[in-house]
């Protein structure tokens, strides 16, 4: 029964928190650029407007893919709230992400096609890092289940500092922040128009946006798990991490996929493996 309530909280709170995070992100970014920026509730207006627009699709696959992406992302957040198995959360999230790419590949537009290929490369970069972070959870708690985490007396950050940094890479890619925002970006203009999102329009773009909010909450939720002993410090940790993300977004240029694969695999996986060896030898 408790699990069911937690799942419902996750499904409802996911988009609400995710939308607010996106709104705050735009405010803080505007502040960095000495602008005023839109109201914090702007993402909700954007999505409501998109949901009310005309349904135009290139083919039926896009509808299915947008829905599966949303359901995958929502289920992974629900599982996170239900303290489920980390590997299950990971695979459900990956299924959703793959469907976003499939929807983009189902269309002939070259922007959409190239964007989808780049999105696949981004997944190739962050997914191994995420798995290694989960292996770290396993080495510390002795289980892939999130429930086992609460038995720990010290915060995970003390034992997995390098894995937290590696998770930062995955977070930056997942949040579509510079320097890794080449499959699509929050900003209007890039060389691929909107990359993987080019051919999603109207209500289906709205669904993709809500799914993106869920994913943001999922990755931030994983960051929060690194300080489970104290809620106040957990909040500070998540807020600090997100502020660093916005700072990185505003100070970095968009890089190429080759640069990303080298950095994320060498640095991200390198940091993870050093941390894992240390955890194992300890």
């Amino acid at each position, binding site marked *: 029964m408790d699990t069911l309530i937690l799942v419902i909280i996750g499904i409802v709170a996911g988009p609400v928190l995710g939308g607010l995070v996106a709104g705050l992100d735009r405010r803080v970014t*505007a502040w960095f650029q000495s602008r005023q920026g*839109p109201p914090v509730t702007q993402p909700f*207006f954007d999505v409501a407007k998109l949901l009310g627009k005309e349904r135009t699709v290139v083919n039926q696959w896009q509808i299915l893919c947008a829905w599966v992406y949303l359901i995958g992302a929502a289920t992974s957040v629900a599982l996170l709230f239900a303290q489920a198995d980390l590997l299950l959360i990971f695979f459900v999230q990956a299924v959703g992400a793959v469907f976003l790419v499939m929807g983009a590949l189902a269309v002939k537009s070259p922007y959409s096609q190239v964007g989808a290929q780049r999105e696949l490369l981004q997944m190739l970069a962050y997914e191994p890092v995420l798995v290694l972070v989960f292996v770290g959870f396993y080495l510390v708690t002795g289980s892939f289940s999130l429930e086992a985490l609460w038995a720990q007396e010290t915060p995970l950050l003390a034992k997995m500092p390098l894995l937290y940094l590696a998770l930062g890479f995955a977070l930056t890619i997942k949040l579509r922040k510079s320097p890794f925002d080449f499959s699509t970006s929050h900003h209007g203009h890039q060389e691929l*128009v*909107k990359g993987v*999102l080019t051919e999603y329009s109207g209500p289906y773009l709205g669904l993709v946006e809500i799914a993106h909010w869920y994913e943001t909450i999922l990755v931030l939720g994983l960051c929060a798990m690194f300080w489970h002993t104290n809620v106040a410090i957990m909040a500070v940790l998540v807020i600090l991490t997100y502020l660093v993300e916005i700072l990185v977004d505003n100070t970095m240029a968009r890089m190429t996929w080759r640069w990303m694969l080298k950095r994320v695999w060498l640095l991200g996986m390198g940091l993870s493996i050093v941390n894992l060896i240390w955890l194992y030898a300890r």
Partner: protein
Amino acid sequence: MFGSFIKKSRAKSPWIMHFDCGSCNGCDIEVLACLTPLYDVERFGIINVGNPKHADVLLVTGTVNHRNKKVLKNIYDQMPEPKAVIAIGACGTSGGVFREAYNVVGGVDKVIPVDVYVPGCPAKPEAIIDGVVAGLAKFAQKVEEAK
């Protein structure tokens, strides 16, 4: 309740697509000036998108000629309803000084329906923002009437 929230959101989140039909770049620079920290149109929820499929408002600058009228029509047709069109500058509204030229069709309204005309050579950023706000009011009215 959700329906009224969607209606309210339309005016609060106009995503703009800018198309240069054959402008001298004067009006284009003024359109882009709206995004700078001085005018900061993002505070009204306005985003400059590069994709007609994501856009609500089409800003057109410059005269229409026989070559690009098909492109203009194509971009307009790709935008999902509800949508609005704003013609900017002397050339966009009427063809400007080029209206008599043999290759010029005239203003934007010769090809697609225009909701708001923003005059000026070039149009001021304040006038463009004003035009977008007027365009949104018209477009809210259109949505009302359609139902």
